[in-house]
């Protein structure tokens, strides 16, 4: 909440309104997802899994698989991380809620469009920066023409727009191209290093 308000204060007026409106939408989404989580409440011990490494899992592998399907927020194995595996394409609003809003990991959301030239440059660069973090951050890709409502909901006007979400809150964002160093520092900040 504090971080959302901070972002709102830091911006000039027009963006302020967008950010506050975005914050409101997120709050609505949060409330909804929390109630969904209540329905799907997992055994309390399972909550530790997604934030710890594989070696310290508290449940046996079969149950872990039943809670999180392989293609979800965690990479398959730490050894197999490649740029391809690093990001996933959001399929629909429910998918976004499950894999981004409800993700235990911080998630970078890359809003892009097929017709956007700079997006084609930023996408791989962002994946490279995310891959460097070896599973500490996930990356979702949203095609704004396929998921217009979602893009509008998050106040995307120009592309590429990247938003960083942690625990369902937008903690940072940027619009346009960034170079490798800027992306590395952005990603580190999101993870909290």
């Amino acid at each position, binding site marked *: 909440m504090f971080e959302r308000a901070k972002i709102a204060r830091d911006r000039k007026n027009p963006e302020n309104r967008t950010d506050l409106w975005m914050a409101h939408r997120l709050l609505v989404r949060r409330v909804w997802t929390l109630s969904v989580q209540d329905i799907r409440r997992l055994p309390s011990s399972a909550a530790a899994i997604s934030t710890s490494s594989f070696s310290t899992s508290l449940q046996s592998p079969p149950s872990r698989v039943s809670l999180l399907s392989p293609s979800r927020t965690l990479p398959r194995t730490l050894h197999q991380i490649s740029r391809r595996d690093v990001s996933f394409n959001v399929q629909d609003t429910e998918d976004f809620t499950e894999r981004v809003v409800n993700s235990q990991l911080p998630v970078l959301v890359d809003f892009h469009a*097929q*017709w956007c030239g700079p997006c084609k440059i930023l996408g791989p660069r962002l994946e490279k920066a995310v891959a460097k973090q070896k599973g500490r951050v996930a990356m979702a890709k949203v095609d704004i023409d396929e998921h217009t409502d979602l893009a509008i909901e998050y106040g995307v*006007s120009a*592309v590429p727009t990247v938003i960083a979400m942690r625990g369902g809150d937008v903690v940072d964002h940027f619009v346009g191209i960034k170079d490798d160093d800027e992306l590395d520092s952005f990603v580190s900040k999101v993870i909290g290093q």
Partner: protein
Amino acid sequence: MAALCRGSHRWKKINSFHVLKRNLTGKHDYDLVVIGGGSGGLACSKEAAQLGQKVAVLDYVDPSAKGTKWGLGGTCVNVGCIPKKLMHQAALLGTAVKDAQRYGWQISGTVSHDWATMAEAVQNYVKSLNWGHRVQLQDKKVTYLNLKGTLVDKHTIRGLSKAGKETILTAKNIVLATGGRPKYPSNVPGAMEHGITSDDIFWLKKSPGKTLVVGASYVALECAGFLTGIGLDTTVMVRTIALRGFDQQMAGLVTDHLESYGTRFEWKSVPTRVEKLSSGALKVTWTNTQTGCEHSDTFDSLLWAVGRAPETKALGLDKLGVQISKETGKIIVGPDESSSLPNIYAFGDIGEGRPELTPTAIKAGRLLAHRLAGRSSELMNYDNVATTVFTPLEYGCVGLSEEEAEKRHGKDGIEVYHAFYKPLEFTVAQRDSSQCYIKVICERAGHQKILGLHFLGPNAGEVLQGFSLALQCGATYRQLMQTVGIHPTSAEELVKINITKRSGLDPTVTGC
């Protein structure tokens, strides 16, 4: 979700009850609903929302006969002005590359054009505009609905989604701005199955190849122009005259230039049938109406540019008694864009007697929004609207054609100044400037008020915009002569013009 699906018929009954209740209590869902998300519709809805009205805009694109469809923004953005001008630019650049060599540029090998590269770039830009419009509607707080709108009664609209789902909306005022779509000929077998229109040409992924353009409207000539310019074998088939409604002397010069540019013309001809050959090519048979002879040829593509029809059939107008013109199918409107029903308005391409142009639709839409919000009573001024035909040699004009000026003032009541000039850029490039021509039509008496300006030459649109302001201010020939030209430009020839048609003297400009 399941509950909603099962109770859909119940939902409809509840919905119509709400509509009835709303109508009785006088409360509508919206202050204004605009049907049509093109140049006019978007401008009107955004302006109305800015003035504090609760506005919704319905936009829906029926796919073309070939299945082409596009996003928000209307004809201009998707299948008109924007892609047209970009492809026109592509063609001009081809000519520029040829000129460049005379200016010293060393270009090795042959220069060829790749349709796919151009088309992708143009299509990507158009898609970015679709998104931009979507964001603008969101920012201006206009509700956007991707539904096909029909009038149920004078305050109720039924919107149909692609999936067939119905939505009912009520509005205090309704504005119709659904525009038009290209016509297919009704009497040519094979026309629709094998031919394309301007709805399709800009969205082709592969080059249209050897193309026959049927028609001589500005759409036909502009398309034929850029197709020729990018190196395609292009033929234009004209039934009677070119650029109907435009100054015919200028129209003749435009087609003369196109012919010298490399476009083939089949004059006074009408296609009689279109067949697809086993090779995939199209065999077109036509009759020359002057000689009566039949001819045929094969083409890769056939582009119909034989006129546009207004999108009024699906609006349900006849049921409500909204008057439409029997001849054109367009909605009969008053000077304030009102229809025969008090709270229903129509403007843009569907308005009878209105110019089919984006800037007039935008301006009319904004003024209408102001009037509906009770903020002003200013009406749209449709006079002296400047336009440009973006053929390879551009033709810009504002005001009256010579024919119209003669009709209104009599041949003796007007003075026509004219000049053939040569753009400086053409000299080194060794380009032919035979059709570079200017005509200024004035009243003959007094200070000689300018009635019409016609300019054929490069960048005609850019040249003419400033002069349209002059006409708006009631400029006279006297004032034109008092204006000093910018040198060296082609535009300066407009303020230097002095040879009259009446004098019979040679109007070719010589030297500085």
